[in-house]
């Protein structure tokens, strides 16, 4: 307490002495400092927001153009549109911040940890769990599976009641989830071995084309689309970080050549598996 008051007294005296000479300089510096601080604060808050607004600008332009010039209608409920767009912009900014601080670092640190541990079985188990776990609950997949069950029921492949439709949809979801799990395992295996990606992808294409020739016609469109819906917004950054992390922690692998490609596998295998499901059930 005593120390502190003495310190204050000294500070006062010093300030008094310095006052006459440097008051103007000091106040300017302080002001500049505050201004700089506020500016950098505001900037760090708003610059991600500005860049997400820039990301969204094309959508807004397209909608405005077609609405005004082609359909020649006023935009209904403009207020709601603006609030919604603001939500999207803020959400995108937060998501990207979360990518940089959460998803990317954890994906990479796990890849490093598995590579250092050198336990292949656990790495494979992790890869499968990641592929299966992120796909089975994917809302887009649930929607597609329901749609496919409807198609199958109308085509007379399964009896048209709720029970058989929901069991068909569940079976399809599990099939796709298993196929994504296998895809991630195969992709990780490729990174470990350093195989060139195109042989596997071309093999996959051949598989798809062959299956197309035999699969029932109704399932083909759904099967082709199912490849696109399995890779969700949370899975993609994690899986990418895992692949790049693995490739950069193994000697002799190039993160650019070997690190990418897991997503490509994950969107290829579901097509084959869904057509197979359509053939056997």
């Amino acid at each position, binding site marked *: 307490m005593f120390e502190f008051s003495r310190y204050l007294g000294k500070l006062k005296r010093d300030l008094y002495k310095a006052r006459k000479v440097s008051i103007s300089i000091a106040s300017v510096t302080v002001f500049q400092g505050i201004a700089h601080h506020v500016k950098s604060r505001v900037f760090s808050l708003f610059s991600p927001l500005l860049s997400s607004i820039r990301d969204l600008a094309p959508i807004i332009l397209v909608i405005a153009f077609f609405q005004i010039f082609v359909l020649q209608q006023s935009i209904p409920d403009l207020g709601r549109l603006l609030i919604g767009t603001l939500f999207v912009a803020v959400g995108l900014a937060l998501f990207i911040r979360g*990518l940089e601080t959460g998803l990317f*670092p954890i994906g990479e640190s796990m890849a490093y940890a598995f590579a250092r541990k050198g336990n292949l079985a656990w790495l494979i188990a992790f890869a499968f769990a990641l592929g299966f776990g992120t796909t089975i609950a994917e809302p887009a997949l649930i929607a597609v599976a329901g749609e496919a069950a409807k198609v199958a029921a109308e085509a007379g492949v399964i009896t048209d009641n709720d029970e058989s439709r929901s069991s068909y949809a569940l079976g399809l979801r599990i099939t796709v989830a298993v196929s994504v799990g296998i895809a991630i395992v195969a992709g990780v295996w490729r990174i470990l071995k350093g195989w060139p990606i195109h042989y596997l992808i071309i093999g996959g294409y051949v598989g798809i084309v062959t299956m197309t020739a035999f699969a029932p016609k109704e399932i083909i469109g759904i099967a082709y689309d199912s*490849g696109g819906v399995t890779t969700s917004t949370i899975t993609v950054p994690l899986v990418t*970080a895992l692949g790049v992390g693995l490739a950069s922690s193994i000697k002799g692998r190039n993160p650019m050549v070997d690190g990418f490609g897991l997503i490509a596998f994950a969107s290829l295998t579901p097509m084959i598996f869904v057509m197979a499901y359509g053939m056997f059930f």
Partner: protein
Amino acid sequence: MELFLHLLDTGLTTLKDVLPIAVIIFGFQLLVIRRPIPNIKKTLIGFCYVLIGLALFLVGLEEALFPIGKLMAQQLTHPEFIQTGITQSTKLIQWHDYKWVYLFAFTIGFATTIAEPSLIAVAMKAHSVSGGAIGVWGLRVAVGLGVAFGIALGAFRIVTGTPLHYYIIVGYVVVVFQTFYAPRLIVALAYDSGGVTTSTVTVPLVAALGLGLASTVPGRSPLVDGFGLVAFASLFPIMTVMGFAQVAEWRNRKSKRHRSEQGD
């Protein structure tokens, strides 16, 4: 109030989506790796950001962009709108009477891809891994153009009713050929960019367009012809990304040759 409830609901759904992933990651981290997570606080905060950000993003899309986008897709494919553009005396709808639909498909495909969060994630990663050689915007524009072209062609396919798999198989053949001529560094990334294009933003709008077309064009069934746009949107970016890399490499080589010739 309604908006708040929607936000809460979507937040819970997103939490449900993230939960299995969090369980797998933290389960393996604690039971198998058995090491404390580096920067655990920062990582958890990052997860919260992802959660809140995604929930806001989805609510905003559902509140604002999806309703109007879907409405526009329906209006543009509506026979009455198509009829107004027809000037010939035949009054028969031809494939080129859908010109506004193709333009809409192209522009909305490009625009939604630019805003696609998972593509931003991959582009950021590719930028840092390549040491800045691959620009974040360059990749996104290349992928966006691929999706745009793919969806426009997909709309044409639905209008004409040609079988989906012919297009896909031809696309595969082109991709395979390109693979052997494209720079090796880009191949894996190009394959990946096919899968990332179609998630949160693109799929709902594109599906609305596909279903709208398939249910209004005479002779098409939404069940058989309504699908397939997503497949196109994930095939064409592979070609454009490799194509961009090929052009960049070709120009590089040309300017290098030019320079060495000048040196001689």
